[in-house]
């Protein structure tokens, strides 16, 4: 068989580009494997698929290694069959490779640290992803997210006005919560000590974490700001293997800090964001970074140690465990600081086993959450994680990674673990003891008064006070009776009039008939496809004013909604949903004003 025989253009390009991409580390890893099989059991995919050797790290690695051997190593040129060398010829071959490098490996690097030869499969798996992406072969989600990040500068396509609106909204919430109208979420303030960068997921699905971080900066008296441009610290280049994208995204963030003359870039809790920005960014961007960078975990820990913030751990009495993000722990050495912090802000922290650099992937690593075609195998691979979680018997699993939040939430739901996912920023904010400045006449000494943490306003005012959702009609759509009851009860208690639907068809019918102000929409219901229902509602001129808040336990279904060409929903809440988040989000949704409205 000739290596050059009838190759598709893409296959040929992939081989040529592999030659350009290979460095000594990768070539060493490709040459050194002795097929000893020691890494086999270290992979969560293997553990979840007993008897299926195609998930074994060395088997998957060999799909890439065979190309390397065939084209770049003389042993493979001279004796291809003998040493397991082979080429790729067709686009179908590339599709097969795609399903392995994207669908069967989260690049978690657990096999790497368990290989006696030091073979770093995850690194050359990422290279293979990059090669496939460079010839246009990739899962649809990877294409969509990469495009968003190239075009809008952030991987969720969040528009600048939405980002700034969310910051304003959170600022108002905080002012109300802390009864301090001077409190600010500063934007584009030059010469600050800290420039804070976030994950666009926080804007879209978890704005509370921005407010929590702001509360902590405020309490610490930090000189800080958020940039209005180049604020996304996530980087899909890490997942897609596209170093150019990686360099461009990291470069944008670095530039924004330089433009603001910030002294330190603080990266909010996100494993891949931290790794891409702190550890890979300067390499991809091929530039040295003239300021410090740290994870917000270190920042929060520092504030407590320096006495800049006070915390009361009794406010977090529930048992919590910690999930180490692969990117943080195995690629950046961030594993002791979160534990130190947890012990300072929680009453009952318990380890999960194995942990730190030996922890198992949440299943959502390597961009897996954006590749819905591989969701079944991803969920199946979560059994090991589910067992790890169950064994702790904790109420909460804490993680310093937004990807892990989604990955864990999925695993918890799928395997009915009965646990909630949260982040350190939420726990620290919850434990924060804030000294409220009481307004007093001038020249009277100001006595700091310790006030209890005020939860996000739920609108339950004093007797007779108008309830926050009074006069609002809300269509609550969910097929799970418990969820339906819970959401309805919370909204009803706050004054809303509730209409209930349990199927896609009912949603459509009741929306048209009842004309509610808000629709809370579960993405997974029987009957008509919810994506279609959403589309029909958006296209119905009579329902132009209807605000929609997605409430879902299946983040992978987001694409049903967000990839449509109609106006996106006004709000989004992840399940399991709690009262506080639900109300905050519904209130926000009601405040949205569309220019076309």
């Amino acid at each position, binding site marked *: 068989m000739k290596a050059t025989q009838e190759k598709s253009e893409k296959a040929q390009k992939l081989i040529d580009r592999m030659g350009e991409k290979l460095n000594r580390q990768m070539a060493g890893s490709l040459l050194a494997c002795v097929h000893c099989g020691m890494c086999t059991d270290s992979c969560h995919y293997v553990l979840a698929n007993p008897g299926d050797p195609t998930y074994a790290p060395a088997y998957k690695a060999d799909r890439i290694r065979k190309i390397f051997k065939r084209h770049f190593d003389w042993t493979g040129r001279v004796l291809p069959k003998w040493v397991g060398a082979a080429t790729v010829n067709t686009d179908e071959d590339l599709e097969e490779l795609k399903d392995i490098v994207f669908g069967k490996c989260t690049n978690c690097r657990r096999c790497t640290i368990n290989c006696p030869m030091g073979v770093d499969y995850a690194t050359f798996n990422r290279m293979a992803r990059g090669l496939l992406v460079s010839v246009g072969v990739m899962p649809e989600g990877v294409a969509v997210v990469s495009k968003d990040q190239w075009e809008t500068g952030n991987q969720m396509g969040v528009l600048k006005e939405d980002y700034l609106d969310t910051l304003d909204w959170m600022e108002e919430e905080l002012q109300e919560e802390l009864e301090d109208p001077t409190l600010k979420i500063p934007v584009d303030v030059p010469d600050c000590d800290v420039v804070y960068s976030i994950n666009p997921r926080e804007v879209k699905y978890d704005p509370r974490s921005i407010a929590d971080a702001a509360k902590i900066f405020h309490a610490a008296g930090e000189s800080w700001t958020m940039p209005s441009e180049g604020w996304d610290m996530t980087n899909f280049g890490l997942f897609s293997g596209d170093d150019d994208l990686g360099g461009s995204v990291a470069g944008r963030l670095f530039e924004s800090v330089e433009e603001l003359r910030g002294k330190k870039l603080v990266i909010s809790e996100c494993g891949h964001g931290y790794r891409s920005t702190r*550890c890979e960014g300067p390499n991809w961007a091929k530039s040295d970074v003239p300021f410090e960078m740290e994870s917000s975990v270190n920042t929060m820990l520092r504030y407590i140690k320096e006495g800049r913030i006070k915390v009361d751990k009794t406010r977090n009495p529930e048992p919590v465990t910690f999930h180490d993000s692969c990117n943080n722990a195995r690629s950046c050495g961030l594993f002791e600081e979160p534990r130190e912090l947890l012990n300072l802000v929680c009453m009952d922290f318990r380890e999960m086993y194995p942990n730190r650099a030996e922890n198992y992937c949440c299943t959502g690593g390597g961009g897996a959450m954006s590749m819905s075609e591989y969701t079944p195998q991803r969920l199946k691979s979560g059994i090991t994680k589910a067992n790890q979680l169950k064994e702790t018997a904790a109420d909460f699993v804490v993680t310093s990674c937004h990807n892990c939040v989604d990955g864990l939430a999925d695993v918890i739901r799928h395997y009915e673990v009965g646990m909630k996912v949260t982040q350190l920023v939420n726990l620290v904010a919850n434990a924060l003891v804030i000294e409220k400045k009481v307004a007093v006449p001038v020249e009277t000494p100001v006595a700091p008064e310790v006030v209890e943490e005020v939860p996000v306003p739920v609108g339950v005012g004093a007797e007779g006070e108008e309830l926050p959702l009074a006069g609002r009609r809300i269509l609550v759509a969910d097929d799970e009776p418990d969820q339906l009851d819970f959401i309805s009860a919370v909204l009803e208690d706050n004054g809303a009039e509730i209409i209930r639907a349990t199927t896609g068809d009912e949603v459509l019918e009741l929306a048209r008939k009842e004309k509610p102000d808000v629709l809370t929409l579960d993405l997974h219901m029987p009957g008509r496809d919810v994506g279609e229902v959403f589309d029909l509602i958006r296209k119905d001129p009579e329902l132009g004013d209807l605000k929609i808040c997605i409430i879902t336990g299946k983040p992978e279904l987001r694409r049903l909604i967000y990839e449509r060409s109609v106006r996106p929903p006004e709000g989004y809440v992840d399940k399991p949903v709690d009262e506080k988040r639900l109300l905050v989000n519904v209130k926000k949704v009601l405040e949205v004003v569309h220019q076309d409205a």
Partner: protein
Amino acid sequence: MHEMSDLLRVIHTLHWYALAFMGLVYVIRINWFVKRFKAGGERQAATGIPGRTTPKKGILYSWGNVAMPWSMESSRTRPFFYLQFVAFHLGVTAAILLLFIIPLGPGLLENEAVVLALRIPIGAAFLVGLGRMVRRFGDKYMRAISSPDDYFSLILLTVWFFFAFLAVPNSTANGEWHLIGYFLIATFFLAYVPFSKISHYLYYPFTRYYIGKSLGHRGVFPILRGPARG
């Protein structure tokens, strides 16, 4: 001690040539590896707990990993595998030493202790080789990752251990077929190894160096394990 037959003498000579050939191929191969592939660097400031890890510590830890079965879950949880690994590689070392002792210092083999010191690891390696064959042929996962070279190299090594075990006293009391077998296979090996996975030891220092350097810089190596369960 024995007088070499002409055949054995020819094989001996051949074996030196094969050794030279292997050395030459290795030089070419390392040259190719180093020149063809540029080493990637890391610009970012170090991460991890300051002072706990450095690239240097990472490299030393990474190289030392072979002697620290507790450092990796894969060897920590399989002590028997680790022992097999040790026995196998000690056997290889002993069998290679023998290649030099017989032609250059045969007198050493008059000492019973030396004979034992060589025979025990070689015999153990032979048994491990048999066990590894069973695993490689019988285990579905191992079959899925095995190339013809993997099977062949293992069989050849195991057979070589067998002959090496017999060859250790360097005695021809029962003929010299075992010595011929031992040297012939060794000669073939020396020429074959550069093309096979057996030359993994050539890359081992590099791969472990680079992973150690990188993970040392990133605060991961040496691995820090938390308190034990329970």
